């Protein structure tokens, strides 16, 4: 049974990591904790659902639509809310509160448009692939989630590490003012980051909506809480941290349910998180910013 539990943990961990990816990206570049990420993720799910059920489009088109719609909402949030706050030099708490407002608006809008009851993708959007290796049962979807999560993270990591664009973004992450003085289009890259992060959130929404077989206006909230835990654990703003943190939380949750008690899943996972933070307050990959004069 341990092999199956490891597969369960890997899937759940990848789901957390995928969600945390966009979340940590925004924090790394914009230095904003964007609490609307959960709602954007939910909107992505509904966008794909609408494409698949209403326009009878294939799933890949639904996924693209989800990324586009979510991305545009992320861009809108940046242009309409975060940008004016940046221009006014608002303290850190203000964008957090403002994005809670966005969450409330999006959740209620989804409730009004789609209703509060649970919806799901039709059965036939996914090919019924199933693999049985020994005692381990794997669905095609689970392989897809793990693969897509890892690919997206590798792509994002490479862009940030090895390209000119990535260098510019990291410069902004270090100091937006200095970056602007060096001629980097800071506002443009902020918009791009917000779009990309939200699009990743939308993609996560589709995959998680498929995996959990449930789409509701409130699906973002529990995942958001886990996402916050993941990026704190991994180190705020670090892409590798989102991966490792997500997997850590997934494994801790599944293995404690499997070998301690199913009542204790969250308690053990968050207890471990607490212990890690006691030892490394900056998270696994976080660095304490050192400013040299």
């Amino acid at each position: 049974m341990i092999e199956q539990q490891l597969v369960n943990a890997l899937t759940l961990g990848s789901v957390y990591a995928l969600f945390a990816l966009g979340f940590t990206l925004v924090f790394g570049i914009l230095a904003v904790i964007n609490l609307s990420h959960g709602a954007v993720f939910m909107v992505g799910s509904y966008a794909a659902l609408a494409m698949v059920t209403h326009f009878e489009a294939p799933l890949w088109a639904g996924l693209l639509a989800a990324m586009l719609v979510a991305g545009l909402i992320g861009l809108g949030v940046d242009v309409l809310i975060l940008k004016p706050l940046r221009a006014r030099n608002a303290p850190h708490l203000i964008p957090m509160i403002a994005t809670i407002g966005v969450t409330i608006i999006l959740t209620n809008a989804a409730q009004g448009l789609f209703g509060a009851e649970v919806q799901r993708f039709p059965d036939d959007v996914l090919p019924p692939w199933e693999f049985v290796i020994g005692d381990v049962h794997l669905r095609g979807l689970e392989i897809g989630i793990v693969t897509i999560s890892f690919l997206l993270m590798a792509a994002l990591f490479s862009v940030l590490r090895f390209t000119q664009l990535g260098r510019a973004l990291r410069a902004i992450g270090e100091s937006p003012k200095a970056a602007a003085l060096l001629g980097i289009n800071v506002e443009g890259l902020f918009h791009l980051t917000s779009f990309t992060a939200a699009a990743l959130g939308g993609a996560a929404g589709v995959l998680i909506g498929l995996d959990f077989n449930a789409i509701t206006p409130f699906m973002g909230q529990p995942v958001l809480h886990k996402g916050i835990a993941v990026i704190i654990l991994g180190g705020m703003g670090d892409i590798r941290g989102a991966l490792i943190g997500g997997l850590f939380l997934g494994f801790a949750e599944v293995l404690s349910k499997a070998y301690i008690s199913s009542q204790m899943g969250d308690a053990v996972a968050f207890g471990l998180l607490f212990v890690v933070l006691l030892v490394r307050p900056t998270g696994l990959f976080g660095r304490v910013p050192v400013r040299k004069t």
Partner: protein
Amino acid sequence: MILRRVALAIAISVSVTAYGADVKIGVAEALTGGAAQYGVAVRNGLQLAADEINAGGGVNGNKLQLIIEDEQGKKEEAINVLKKLVFQDKVLMVFGPTLSNSMFAGGPVANGAKVVAFGTSNTANGITDIGPYIFRNSVMESDVLPLTISTAARHYGIKKVAVIYGNDDAFTKSGYDVFKKALEDQKIPVTTTETYAKGDVDFKAQLTKIKGGNPDAIVCSCLAEEAANIMLQARGLGIKAPFIGGNGFNSPKLFEISKLAGEGTFVGSPWANTNPAPANQKFVAAYKQKYSSDPNQFSAQAYDAMHIAAAALKTVKLSGNLEADRQALRDALPKVAINGATGPFKFRPAAGKDGKPAGFDADQKPFIYMIQGGKFVLYSGK
């Protein structure tokens, strides 16, 4: 609303001259809020039965007049509404409230005033311990679940089971307690007991553990939504064992979501849509005609409850003295036995707590279903 009440009042005053006195009956059900899906079904069932009785000339020439109030599924509203019905509207008896919690809050108001409170949807233990004026025709889980288990155990030759339930919901938790006791009584060993929390969507860790114990069946005290996902994920993990479900399974939602993953599941219910008994077929057809939708167990039980009350009223000679009439109705109710939409029904005195006088529970045999072809099929085996 006011206009309708005025219209109703006029209609009643006309009917008074035409048919003699009206019998005022209070209805306190959750018509808005989260419990409305049950409360509205109950109200519909009561209304349908009352209309039928009135169309047939009423009870001893007296028409039944329903005074319907919304208790919103809240304890404090249940108390307010029952006070209004008992003291202000001076009803002869009350149906409701909808939820067991509301009955625990509102029941004592009626009982204290020596007015019958008749629950049609309260299944929790201890409801009728409130006092001698509390009646219910809703079959308790402790009557349904043990029969479900013993029937399934006979059918499949079950030697050991695994259990999964939601541990932060009063309904699924109390279902679990009843299952646990029934399994102990029937000496069926439990390989593992797993839990989840409301809103959980990923049950694979628990199910993988269940699979390890290789049970002959999985006992699941869950709401339909969660149950369906548990079934789907169990099949995804290669678990072939059938499920045994509680009252939460009694929803068409189960099939909408789980499709064929629930084949072979055993479920107990106080009512069977497909029960061919004439009383039931008449009810199902009349309900569909009046409300253009299918009835559920809650409307069926409410429908029967109104007929039970009418049968009791028939034996009572109303004196016009409210207190005496209320008491006479209370004394007539336990003797009623009818053959209704939910099958043959009679009351049995509740055991009561610490020797205090208690009310009356339903004495009725539940129906056992097996899920076949994505439908509840009445189990025909022994």
